[in-house]
């Protein structure tokens, strides 16, 4: 379980990047024989801190967290079902009602269409935000004038709750997808600008001399030094963007034309149809988890080396 590293569009400007970049690592030290990692606490009770345990039951011990998690989920489902004995299912429903509702929504209901629509708008908005945001952040980092000019504006934009611009999006782009995608982009762009900028600044401090020493041109420097160096920071920003973008995805769906998952849950809620509502909510969770997983995979496959850098190590997952 990782701490939520970082700040959404709505905190303190560039300070956000510092927090976003991560919490400090515990002191390393004593690598040669210091093999047991994990909790600073003594092993108490059921779970021990053998992250890399070997020996006879090593494979079991290493996976104990996952196993505990799986058991917890199963147990949770059981408890959930049991609540129907004491509570009216209108509140949180039960698995026995939700699963068929989910099925119904999938097969003959609007779920697949809504899911797809939300997913596509989300990806579109975040992609746009990434392209523009990383671009602006990079430029700010490389061109001092631009940095000084834009820094206060970015800080202000980062602090503003972009949610408030929802009606403005409607006004400018109509009541359809363009507005929703624009909305997501507006929300998701700030963490990317801020973090990319912070990344470039960090590279500027540490690695700038590397480029000049080897006599690289500006473009070469960007390609060989700045881009790779900033990537860990960009990914941190991307994670935050996903999180806040998802909020925009749902909100946009609800307010701009009642479509997608956002629209679906509003309609179901208005009719107090809890079972399909819960099903839709869980689907949203699944969508969000899928997006984060996708990002992680992308980072792990295309840039596996990021995990090994110090900035990457801080963002342990």
């Amino acid at each position, binding site marked *: 379980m990782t701490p939520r590293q970082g700040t959404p569009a709505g905190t303190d400007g560039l300070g956000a990047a510092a927090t976003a970049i991560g919490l400090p690592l515990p002191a390393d030290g004593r690598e040669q024989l210091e093999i047991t990692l994990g909790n600073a606490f003594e092993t108490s009770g059921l779970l021990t801190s053998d992250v890399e345990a070997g020996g006879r039951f090593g494979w079991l011990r290493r996976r104990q967290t996952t196993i505990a998690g799986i058991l917890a989920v199963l147990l949770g489902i059981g408890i959930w079902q049991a609540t129907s004995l004491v509570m009216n299912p209108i509140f949180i429903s039960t698995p026995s009602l939700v699963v068929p509702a989910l099925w119904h929504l999938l097969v003959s209901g609007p779920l697949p269409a809504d899911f797809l629509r939300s997913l596509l708008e989300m990806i579109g908005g975040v992609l746009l935000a990434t392209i523009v945001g990383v671009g602006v952040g990079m430029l700010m980092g490389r061109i001092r004038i631009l940095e000084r*000019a834009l820094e206060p504006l970015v800080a202000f934009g980062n602090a503003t709750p972009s949610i408030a611009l929802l*009606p403005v999006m409607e006004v400018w782009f109509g009541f359809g997808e363009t507005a929703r995608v624009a909305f997501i982009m507006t929300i998701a762009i700030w963490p990317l600008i801020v973090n990319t900028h912070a990344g470039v600044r960090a590279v500027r401090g540490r690695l700038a001399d590397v480029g000049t020493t080897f006599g690289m041109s500006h473009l070469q420097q960007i390609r060989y030094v700045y881009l790779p160096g900033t990537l860990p920071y960009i990914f941190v920003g991307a994670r935050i963007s996903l999180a806040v973008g998802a909020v925009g995805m749902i909100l946009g769906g609800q307010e701009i034309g009642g479509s997608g998952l956002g629209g679906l849950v509003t309609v179901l809620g208005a009719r107090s149809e809890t079972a399909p509502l819960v099903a839709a909510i869980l689907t949203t969770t699944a969508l969000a988890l899928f997006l984060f997983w996708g990002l992680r995979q992308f980072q792990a496959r295309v840039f596996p080396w990021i995990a090994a850098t110090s900035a990457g190590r801080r963002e342990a997952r």
Partner: protein
Amino acid sequence: MTAVAESRADVRPVAGPGGHAPRRRPFADWRSTRVVAPLVAVGVLFGLWELAGVFVNTSLISSPQQVAVDFVNQFSSGPAVPAMELSLRELYVGLAIGISAGIVIGLVIGRYRLLDAVMSPYINAANATPLNVLIPLLLVWVGIGTEARVLFIILISFFPVLLNTAGGLRNVSKGYVEVGKMLGLNEHQLMRKVILPASMPYIFAGVRVGVALGVIGMIVGEIEVSNVGLGYFINFYGNGFRTGQLLALIFLAALIGVVNVLVVRGVQARWFRWISAAR
């Protein structure tokens, strides 16, 4: 902690051995650029804005002058101040509950690995989800009204605090713990004198995020669930294309967010100065 080195352009050129001052590159004088550049940027922005007003229907973008007038009026005679009062009350109640719950449960989860392993699938799922998808469910539970909004703020501020607190506890530097053990601290003393203080930076980070998210939650909640408060009026003005008023309220909302986070930072600086200095 790592001070990002300013580039060489920031160093003011000194007179060289030849005796005369070297030719100064334009924009090398950082002091004036720092002030001028943003002003230029804002100026450009306003310029574009004016220009846009010429080409586009003025109902979409009111002119800067009009906006300024409306902006000021909002504060003197508009609903901004009473709306803010209401929003803030809900905000602080929600934050108080959400943050304290987050810290308490975070401490418990951080302490007991079993609990952590058991709760983490749920917490991760909840953390990944955009929480405003839960609002219709909240409405089913408590109906439209202040409870729903406060509940939402509680939820949205709870998770970052929880995660950062638990993470902080688990990330306490082993070195500190060993020092404590070496000096003979028992479990309880270790917790009180070493582990809790060592987790403070993380807890503060979590609270900052929680506060920021809480402000957003306040606005979102009001957009969706009400006919009162800042968020509602933001929505109202937005829908009515009343840009001046809208901007005023957005500015207000931003201010609330920034001020609150600054308050947290202030508390941290005053009582926990070592947190930033010790990195």
